[in-house]
């Protein structure tokens, strides 16, 4: 715990954490001292000079006009932000920034969420006195995502401080000097960073704006929003999608100080296209005939009953989706319980085994899994098991923070990746071979056990690991590395852990809710289900949100599901839904609510956008209707999450009460974890 100090702000004494700057403290206290260049993640720069306040080191000592962000708070300091000299200074400062700024606020696409606008109003600058020509710039084409409008720049340096200093990108820079400072690329061209979209948010004015949003622009205050979770990977970034007139217009990161904090990756930000896509399922179908969803559900229920009667137990099966919520998958499992059917989840058998092992280790508390902010604190990182930049981009950004702090990074990946440039050493090997390399490192940690010619990569990684104070291993539990890789990483951590020194371990997963469904009780290998569908043993198959499942291999067109009656509960007319006998459309991710579990086993609640749309039910609701139509509505109320998933009973009851703006619920921190999970 850091020490507390006392500082007086505008005559009121406050307690604050020591070692922070005055601006930080004021903002945390909810006191809005105008500022531009300071950003919680990017720190203080002292460039804008707006955060001026009268600051005195203590009672009886003279106060001076100082920049709050450049002043470290000391015990006894007295801060006055209302002093006329400070107020006047800030007003003049805004006047300076507005000298060259276009006066096009009424039609500017940043309007309504522009920090410059807010600060101008806050500082009460009203009259333009400059009568000289304004400076103008040529804009650049920065590619498909980001629009550039340099004339709006107020030179706060936030963009380069984010893009270059924070995200370690090297194709956005600052050029020129004096009154002609330019922020952009060396030449026109698409920004290459995976995190370029954050420029839209860090830029306090409208220099960098979302090109996709511009194309379907509406006033930001007209957007309807809902707190959601990004569906694109297992990090579970908190996001705020915004919609208007039946369409999703844009996605922004939503602050959550235990997950993504301020930022998100471009894949998530610009990857909401599926909501507005042409291939959305809008109407129900049964045996080729269009009908209402209610009718289709009734008919499907009848058909399922018939099949069970005719073919008996085991003739009915379902495949759940890591891209769907806990609720939807729970409803699917319950449906199978009702019908005494079998179920699995999309992916392969080997992958499922790996996911289940990794999730169990985390749920059991057998590994210490860091949150993203904790990942940033490590002083040694080994990445193994996949391309983290593509598979868990925000974790890549967290690793970049360790690189900035000078921590060594070692990478074992299938092929060259973007983080290699920052690694002490990078080793490229196919996923199935990676477990052996990890074991080599474990061996090298233990010189006595070392046999034969030591592997220099393993040796270097081991010696860096041995001397680190806060080491971490990030392991992809996504695919071909299989259970062997999961275990190898765990063994390495077990060996590296010492009483005085924890060694953290992340397993990242292929999809948003892979972790959640990995805890399912009694699921089969997807391989056996798929096989039994293909060989005709399974007569009815319910497929949940295949469109979001990441499994594009299956169903395989070359092996038609001849005698199987297929039911697709989906938002998107993908392969499964096109061929299905019964199509039960549902709302897409951003239009519905639910709970998902990220790589840490953190259950997070998301809400749906109130999009007026033809289909208003979530997949979970559709499935529950189906259960009711089967006459088993009773079971719904009797079933708890922990009946279906290996989660503590306490967590089970809390899931329904989770607030979307909370920190979520970590499975390992819910009580009685060890009792419930073996």
């Amino acid at each position, binding site marked *: 715990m850091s020490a507390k100090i006392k500082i007086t702000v505008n005559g009121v004494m406050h307690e604050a954490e020591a070692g922070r700057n005055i601006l930080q403290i004021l903002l945390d206290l909810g006191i809005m001292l105008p500022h531009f260049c300071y950003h919680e993640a990017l720190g203080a720069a*002292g460039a804008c*000079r707006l955060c001026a306040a009268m600051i005195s080191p203590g009672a009886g000592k003279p106060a001076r006009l100082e920049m709050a962000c450049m002043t470290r708070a000391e015990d006894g300091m007295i801060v006055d932000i209302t002093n006329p000299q400070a107020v006047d*200074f800030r007003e003049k*400062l805004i006047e300076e920034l507005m000298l*060259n700024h276009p006066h096009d606020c009424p039609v500017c696409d940043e309007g309504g969420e522009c920090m410059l606008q807010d600060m101008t109003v806050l500082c009460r600058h009203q009259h333009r006195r*400059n009568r000289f020509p304004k400076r103008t710039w040529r804009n650049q084409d920065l590619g498909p995502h980001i629009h550039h409008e340099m004339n709006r720049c107020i030179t706060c340096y936030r963009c380069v401080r984010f893009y270059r200093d924070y995200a370690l990108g090297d194709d956005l820079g600052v050029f020129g000097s*004096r*009154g002609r*400072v330019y922020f952009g690329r060396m030449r026109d061209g698409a920004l290459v960073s995976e995190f370029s979209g954050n420029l839209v948010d860090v830029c306090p004015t409208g220099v960098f704006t979302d090109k996709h949003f511009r194309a379907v622009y509406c006033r930001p205050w007209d957007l309807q929003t809902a707190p959601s979770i990004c569906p694109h990977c297992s990090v579970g970034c908190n996001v705020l999608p915004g919609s208007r007139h039946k369409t999703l217009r844009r996605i922004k990161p939503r602050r959550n100080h235990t997950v993504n904090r301020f930022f998100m990756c471009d894949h998530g930000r610009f990857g909401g296209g599926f909501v507005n896509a042409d291939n959305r399922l809008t109407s129900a179908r049964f045996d080729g005939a269009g009908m209402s969803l209610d009718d289709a559900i009734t008919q499907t229920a009848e058909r399922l009953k018939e099949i069970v009667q005719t073919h008996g137990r085991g003739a009915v099966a379902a495949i759940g989706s890591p891209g769907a919520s806990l609720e939807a998958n729970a409803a699917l499992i319950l449906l199978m319980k009702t019908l005494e059917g079998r179920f699995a989840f999309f992916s392969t058998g080997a992958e499922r085994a790996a996911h289940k092992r990794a999730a169990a280790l985390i749920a059991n508390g057998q590994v210490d899994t860091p949150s993203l902010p904790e990942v940033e604190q490590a002083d040694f990182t080994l990445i193994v098991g996949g391309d983290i930049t593509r598979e868990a981009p925000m974790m890549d950004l967290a690793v970049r923070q360790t690189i900035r702090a000078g921590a060594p990074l070692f990478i074992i990946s299938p092929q060259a990746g973007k983080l290699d440039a920052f690694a002490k050493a990078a080793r490229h090997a196919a996923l199935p071979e990676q477990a052996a390399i990890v074991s080599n490192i474990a061996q090298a940690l233990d010189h006595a056990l070392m046999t034969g010619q030591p592997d220099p990569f393993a040796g270097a990684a081991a010696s860096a690991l041995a001397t680190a104070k806060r080491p971490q291993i990030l392991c992809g539990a996504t695919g071909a590395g299989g259970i062997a890789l999961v275990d190898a990483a765990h063994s390495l951590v077990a060996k590296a852990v010492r009483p005085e020194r924890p060694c953290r371990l992340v397993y990242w997963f292929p999809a948003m809710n892979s972790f959640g469904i990995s805890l399912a009780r009694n699921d089969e290998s997807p391989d056996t289900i798929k096989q039994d569908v293909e060989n005709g043993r399974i007569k009815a198959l319910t497929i949940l949100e295949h469109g979001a499942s990441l499994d594009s291999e299956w169903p395989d067109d070359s092996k038609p599901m001849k005698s199987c009656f297929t039911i697709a509960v989906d938002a998107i007319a993908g392969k499964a839904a096109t061929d299905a006998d019964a199509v039960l459309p549902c709302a897409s991710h951003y239009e519905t609510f639910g709970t998902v579990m990220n790589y840490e086993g953190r259950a997070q609640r998301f809400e749906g956008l109130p999009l007026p749309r033809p289909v208003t039910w979530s997949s979970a609701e559709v499935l529950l209707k189906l259960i009711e139509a089967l006459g088993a509505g009773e079971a719904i109320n009797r079933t708890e999450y922990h009946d279906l998933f290996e989660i503590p009973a306490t967590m089970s009851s809390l899931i329904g009460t989770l607030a979307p703006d909370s920190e979520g619920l970590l499975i390992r921190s819910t009580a009685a974890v060890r009792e419930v999970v073996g």
Partner: protein
Amino acid sequence: MAQGVRTMSEIVLFKNIQKNGPELFPAGAAAIPACGYDDYVKNGGYQGARKALKMAPLEVQQVVKDSGLRGRGGAGFPTGMKWSFVPMDFKGQKYLICNCDEMEPGTFKDRALVYGDPHQLIESMIIAAYAMQMTQGFIFIRCEYRKGARILEQAAAEALNHGWLGKNIQSSGFDFHLDVHLSAGRYICGEETALLNSLEGKRANPRSKPPFPQVYGFLGSPTIVNNVETLCNLPHILARGAQWHKSLGLNGNAGTKIMGASGRVKNPGLWELPLGTPMREVLNEHAGGPSRGKSFKTVIPGGLSTPMMTPDQFDTPLDFDSVAKAGSRLGTACLIAFDEDDCMVAATANIMKFYMRESCGFCTPCREGIPWIYETVKAIAEGKGEEGDLAVLDDMARHIFHTFCAFAPGAQGPLLSAITTFRHEFEFLIQKSQCHTAGGAS
């Protein structure tokens, strides 16, 4: 100044530099042949360093502290005290940097020291480096002094040959490597933290302080940045002692100062004079009084970035404290003189153009405020002034003080004094659209 005393300028013969007139070009300080190693040694060169190398490093620091030497780069910070902030127990490499960026308009003293007597600077750096046990030194020299850079490189090669640089200097066990870094331009590089960024191959934006360079400087290591002239005092202080140096100044000031005069003086030039020499003596006796028979109107005393002083203040002794008391700063002690016929509005426009062009562009008041001030002053000077312009200048002149570095406060000095002292000229121009002086701008 005491006769026969060897000080900074003995070898560099200033009378050559100060001689004005239609001499053949190339002229100026560059025309004076640099003093070579043999001549330098013949004149007592390297004695100070020899003495220093026999002392303990902290003893050398103490001598410098006792000498009362204050920085000649403009701020007048006591050199010995600055050095004492260097953590002597630091394990890695520490750096000594000589600031020869001299771009302050009206200032030309460092050029003389470098072009005329390069070995004096090298000897000085050896002493400073030894005192703080810094094994790597840089001379950061402005791009326009590239001939000077070559002179220094040549001298450094001679020094190396004679065992004064490199490993185990004069068998003392002390290593000192010296590199000459030719800058790529821009005034802001003279600001010591901007200089460090520049030397590291970055854009020369200043850094925030703390941490101070003495603790966290070049490449994050303890670093001392000293002005050329500050350093050039060291050999003499070491050779003759702290007390001797103290005795050189007038009214309790320590040492001499290279003072200069340019602008509307008859004999512009440089003179090494005791600190505390009255401004009037420099203007009239050394610089020969006004150049075109008009009386002086104002003097900017210390390079451009210092507030203007008026004739009633000409008795001010030129030392750090007296000039500060008179409301200005000694700065580089290179006087810029204006006479009755100079239009101070046009002159202010010229001054602000300099700051506008040389701002590094990092912080708002400097980057945005100064161009606005310049446009406004220029409009007034051109007879296009408007009601309200002076209010803008008043506001902005007050405003450009709270900036990231001392550059913009430097611009504030001459500006604030101009619009205060010569307000009537601004008002006259705004009302009448013509200059109240006979000649207007030059």
